[in-house]
């Protein structure tokens, strides 16, 4: 098996607060292979964005990585010196944020922001950087890129701005792009275009993508594999087709109830009664147990670990405990 | 209130003690010291008549010959001893500071109250009515904001002098001062309240209230004021410190309370004349008191601002 591009092992992210330490990510492990698109889904507050922030090293204090490891192409990056990590950001891991309206500094032209990013990471002349920037804008689908490059962000529409943001994230040709809900803030009409642009350009450059979203439709269309987060824990991970068609974790099953409409988001899981627990009130055992339709006694006591399943899938649920299955069988 | 069971009270106390604000307070030594210092000065000022060994505002009890007694030393003529010495009128500096702080705090609190009431009222009106009235009020606020407060106070004093008959000027001086200082500080309250009002007024319950004929302003007040309490409290705290300093500054310009009933600022203005003459205590002690008071109130305001702004926590 080839070495994965990104490997996250038992990642723990904690927030110390005055009422004790909150564990926002609890032993999250997953890999992203070269050229792969990994979707990451979950309700708001499940820890999707935190995972992205932890990988790129931009957790906001007082949040901190309290355990686990993050490897990028065989190099451990979660404990790098600040300056070394900075060199990885943008150059090897790019990031696209949710809201294109606020992601761009309003006081600088697109050209200034692009060339600044390019020249931070690649030793090229101002002129060359500008040339690359124009090409990049052209590639992400900005019409008349050579003219519009000198416009300020507010001159662009939301969709166009997100294209600019994608161009910026890809400006230094990173190997991995973390896209944190790249379409949520956009008009429905342009969402698909943006996803297409992102997917195409990454594929073209061989960059892997970690696509964070709560839009199952996007995942279904775009991702190779999908990871499902619940209350800071990975519930299930596996190839998109398999997970969608035959979800194993009861939570995922509920989540997939929203798929048929495609446009519906997973924000409101009317299918599953109750709400995701707050971080300071995660029940013992399986975090999902109070809402689970198939809850067992054990779920309330022991926490299920992520366990391998056939077809490259992994699930953390006692339903699939090998010992149990063996006992059942 | 009246029907609360006895158990409710400790609960409320526990809740208050447990609240984020209290927690942040307990964790900030600076805030604790500042609060202690302000509290001590405020209490000392409030209870000045009981705490002060002398009543410096009762001229009949003063003995001029007690003047310029150094701290803790007997007076050359009368043999009287005063903790912090006496000033040029034979007033006990310690007592005068307590009574002076009383005046300063009174002016400060009343000026803040005046600014607050004016600002909140105008903010509500501007935010609720909108339209030309809003534009007008906000233009006035803009101009007001650029117009230096001390000039404004000087002008108000000028006008007041024209309208108040000479016989009442002295008695009215403190109120004129309060209005002058308060009037230069209402804009901030107005802006905060206006913003909150504009948000609230579009909400359904206000519309609903309108439909059923209830006076929406009542509802607005009930809903908006709790929302803006935080920022208003911060503005008011900082405003209190500013008002106390403004009063001191104005007394230097000859606009202020009568010297027979001096505020801290007036005491400093008077004490300043003794900087080179050797009677350092007349200047030092009132200045230290004012510094301690204004600094601790400012620090409290600072802390409050950070504590009430969850995004900065």
């Amino acid at each position, binding site marked *: 098996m080839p070495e994965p591009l990104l490997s996250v092992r038992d990642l723990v992210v904690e927030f110390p607060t005055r009422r004790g330490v909150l564990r926002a990510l609890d032993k999250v492990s997953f890999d992203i292979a070269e050229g792969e698109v990994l979707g990451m889904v979950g309700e708001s507050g499940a820890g999707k964005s935190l995972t992205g922030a932890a990988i*790129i090293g931009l957790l906001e204090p007082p949040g901190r990585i309290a355990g686990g490891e993050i490897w990028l192409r065989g190099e451990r990056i979660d404990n790098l010196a600040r300056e070394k990590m900075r060199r990885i950001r943008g150059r090897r891991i790019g990031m696209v944020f949710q809201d294109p309206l606020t992601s761009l500094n309003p006081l600088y032209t697109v050209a200034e922001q692009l060339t*600044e990013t390019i020249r931070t990471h690649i030793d090229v002349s101002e002129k060359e950087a500008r040339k690359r920037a124009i090409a990049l804008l052209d590639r992400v689908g900005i019409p008349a890129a050579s003219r519009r490059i000198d416009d300020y962000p507010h001159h662009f529409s939301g969709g166009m701005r997100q294209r600019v943001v994608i161009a910026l994230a890809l400006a230094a040709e990173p190997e991995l792009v973390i896209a944190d809900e790249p379409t949520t803030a956009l008009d429905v009409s342009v969402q698909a275009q943006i996803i297409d642009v992102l997917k195409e350009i990454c594929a073209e450059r061989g960059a892997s993508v970690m696509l964070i979203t709560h839009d199952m439709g996007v995942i279904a269309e775009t991702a190779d594999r999908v990871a499902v987060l619940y209350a800071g824990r990975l519930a299930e991970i596996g190839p998109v087709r398999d997970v969608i068609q035959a979800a194993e974790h009861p939570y995922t099953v509920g989540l997939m109830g929203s798929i048929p409409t495609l446009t519906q988001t997973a924000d409101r899981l009317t299918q599953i009664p109750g709400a995701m627990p707050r971080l300071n009130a995660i029940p013992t055992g399986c975090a999902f147990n109070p809402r689970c339709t198939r809850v067992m006694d054990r779920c309330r006591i022991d926490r299920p670990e992520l366990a391998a399943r056939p077809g490259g899938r992994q699930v953390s649920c006692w339903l699939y405990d090998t010992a149990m299955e063996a006992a059942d069988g | 209130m009246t029907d609360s069971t006895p158990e409710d009270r400790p609960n409320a106390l526990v809740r208050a003690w447990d609240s984020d604000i209290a927690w942040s307070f307990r964790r900030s030594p600076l805030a604790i010291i500042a609060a202690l210092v302000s509290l001590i000065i405020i209490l000392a000022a409030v209870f000045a008549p009981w705490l002060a060994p002398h009543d410096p505002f009762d001229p009949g009890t003063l003995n001029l010959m007690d003047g310029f007694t150094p701290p803790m030393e007997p007076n050359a003529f009368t043999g009287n001893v005063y903790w912090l010495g006496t000033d040029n009128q034979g007033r006990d500096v310690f007592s005068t500071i307590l009574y002076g702080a009383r005046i300063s705090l009174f002016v400060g609190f009343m000026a803040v109250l005046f600014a607050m009431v004016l600002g909140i009222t105008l903010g509500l009106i501007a935010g609720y009515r909108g339209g030309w009235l809003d534009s007008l009020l906000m233009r006035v606020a803009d101009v007001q904001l650029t117009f230096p407060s001390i000039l404004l106070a000087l002008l108000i004093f000028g006008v007041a002098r024209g309208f108040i008959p000479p016989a009442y000027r002295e008695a009215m001086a403190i109120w004129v001062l309060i209005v002058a200082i308060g009037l230069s500080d209402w804009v901030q309250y107005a802006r905060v309240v206006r913003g909150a009002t504009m948000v609230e007024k579009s909400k359904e319950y206000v519309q609903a209230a309108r439909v059923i004929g209830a006076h929406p302003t009542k509802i607005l007040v009930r809903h908006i004021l709790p929302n803006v309490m935080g920022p208003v409290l911060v503005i008011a705290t900082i405003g209190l410190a500013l008002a106390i300093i403004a009063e001191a500054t104005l007394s230097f310009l000859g606009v202020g309370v009568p010297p027979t009933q001096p505020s801290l600022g007036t005491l400093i203005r008077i004490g300043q004349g003794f900087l080179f003459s050797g009677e350092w205590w007349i200047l030092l002690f009132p200045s230290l008191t004012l510094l301690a008071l204004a600094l601790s109130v400012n620090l409290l305001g600072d802390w409050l601002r950070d504590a009430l702004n969850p995004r900065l926590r």
Partner: protein
Amino acid sequence: MIAFILRRLVQSVIVMLTVALVAFSLFRFVGDPIASMVGQETTLAERAELREALGLNDPFIVQFWSFVARAATGDFGISYRLQQPVMELILSRLPATLELALVSGILAFLFGVGFGVYTALRRGNWLSGSIMTISLIGVSLPTFLIGVLLIWVFAVELQWLPSFGRGDTVYIGDWWRTGLLTESGRASLILPAITLGLYQMTLIMRLVRAEMLEVLRTDYIKFARARGLSNRAVHFGHALKNTLVPVITITGLQMGSIIAFSIITETVFQWPGVGALFIRSVQFVDVPVMAAYLMLIALVFVVINLVVDLLYYAVDPRLRVDRANARH
């Protein structure tokens, strides 16, 4: 752009007229100018005569109108006290005040921004905590006391710096007398500039810190970090520039305050500027000077507001959207 400036100018004229009316009417109540104009021997009849000659008995509106009409041509009459044309008097004092205000303003701005940025970036370390606390002393003591204490320490005890006045001055052009070009002029400027600038510095510092913290939390800063930009580029290229937009506005508006507070600083340091002139004029009820001073302050505000608007315009491209849209 032109429409914008025109609109501004119309507003300015209205503001100026209002200030003129306010100033003029207020000063009718400040005191009796005759009393300070004449000696103790002047008879009541002579006083009445002078009052009549000065037009002080005319109806209010007549006095106001003649005031505005003449003010529009820069004629504010002659000072009752110094018997000099008010305009000339003010122009001769203005450079002193402007130099003081400008130097204090620049000092306040530089130190305010510097400290503000530092305390925002190094939140929680002891030095920024100390800066925050110590800076509060600047706003917790009245300006006049700070001035007097500075004189005591630096002029009387240490004898490092002059205690009063402007030192040597030289003329630039026909009427601008500057103290910036001589050593004693610069030495004389230090204490008053500190006294005057301390308060503003604290304000600016706090504002910069608050704005900076706010900006540092924005998405575009996060995005800039995510692109691997250096801390330097993020803090000073991106965060600071965005912070400066509101800071410039407030600092600009504070210039008005600086000029007003120079009344106190100038009095303490016997600085020969318009502030000292104004407060002396108030004492002597020199109405023409007082009125002209207020008009001048109003004018300064109007100009500052305009400059701030234009600066805003230069710093924040979003405001230029009007023009761009207008072309489409």
